[in-house]
């Protein structure tokens, strides 16, 4: 083997493995836009209903909004996974771990929102902390720094949300998702695979 052939072999091998990591970009981009849209629509609905003083339908409108968007997200994810069956990344264990991580985080967020909302507390800061942990862990596992930076953005926006009036926290949520999911997601999608050794 010549030195160039050796380097080509290394690059081809690692590209094949990292392609699996790049596949994660779909989930960050898809769920990122879904949550941003849900947050903005929720903000608009709340703003309108509060102005119109239609307080009795706020809960119903909120739940319908989020359930609709999350269901849409699940359907989109299901279709994507049918078209792109999981690769052998799972063989290494990291793929299985990331699936479990995000399943647990997503379930935790839903439960958190339900429990905290019953006390009239806006869950945005707490949700962003959970998302920060999952995003940071993912960034470390796939060795992608923008995701790690995205997790820091989630923490900062989560802290900011503590000082913002209630329904404006939804705009903080949208900004956090843009910084922590969308931007790193597109960067991951476009990243050129380089042999980082």
């Amino acid at each position, binding site marked *: 083997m010549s030195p160039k052939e050796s380097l080509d072999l290394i690059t081809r*091998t690692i590209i094949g493995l990292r392609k699996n990591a790049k596949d994660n970009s779909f989930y960050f981009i898809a769920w990122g836009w879904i949550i941003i849209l849900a947050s903005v629509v929720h903000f608009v609905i709340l703003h309108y209903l509060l102005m119109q003083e239609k307080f009795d339908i706020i809960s119903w409108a909120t739940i319908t909004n989020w359930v609709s968007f999350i269901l849409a997200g699940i359907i989109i994810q299901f279709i994507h996974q049918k078209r792109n069956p999981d690769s052998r990344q799972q063989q290494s264990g990291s793929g299985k771990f990331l699936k479990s991580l995000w399943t647990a985080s997503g379930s935790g967020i839903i439960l958190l929102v339900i429990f905290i909302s019953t006390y009239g507390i806006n869950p945005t800061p707490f949700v962003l902390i959970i998302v920060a942990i999952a995003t940071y862990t993912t960034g470390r596992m796939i060795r992608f720094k923008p995701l790690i930076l995205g997790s820091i953005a989630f923490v900062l926006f989560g802290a900011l949300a503590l000082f913002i009036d209630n329904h404006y926290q939804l705009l903080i949520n949208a900004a956090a998702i843009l910084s922590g999911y969308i931007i790193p997601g597109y960067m991951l999608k476009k990243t050129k695979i380089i042999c980082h050794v």
Partner: protein
Amino acid sequence: MYRDLDPLIHSQLRLTIMSILIELERADFTFLKEKTGATAGNLSVQLNKLKEAGYIDIEKSFKKNYPLTKCIITPKGIQKFKEYIAALKGYIDPGTEPRT
């Protein structure tokens, strides 16, 4: 500046094994066999060579009565791989001083 290429890494199968492990840190025997396309016997021999040199660790266990062999790259293996890459760069771009 030309450095000697580590003969233990500079072989197609062992280089592929090390490339996979440098990226994933650990992988089991079946995964390595699938990715490298090597026979079980040849792969086993090459893994043992890497293990004897301290570049990888091999953990053997059982899963539902089937043997499970996991290969994990060691800090020495990571360092040696980085040195190998640095040496390769010296050949491809002789004007560059290899760094490790």
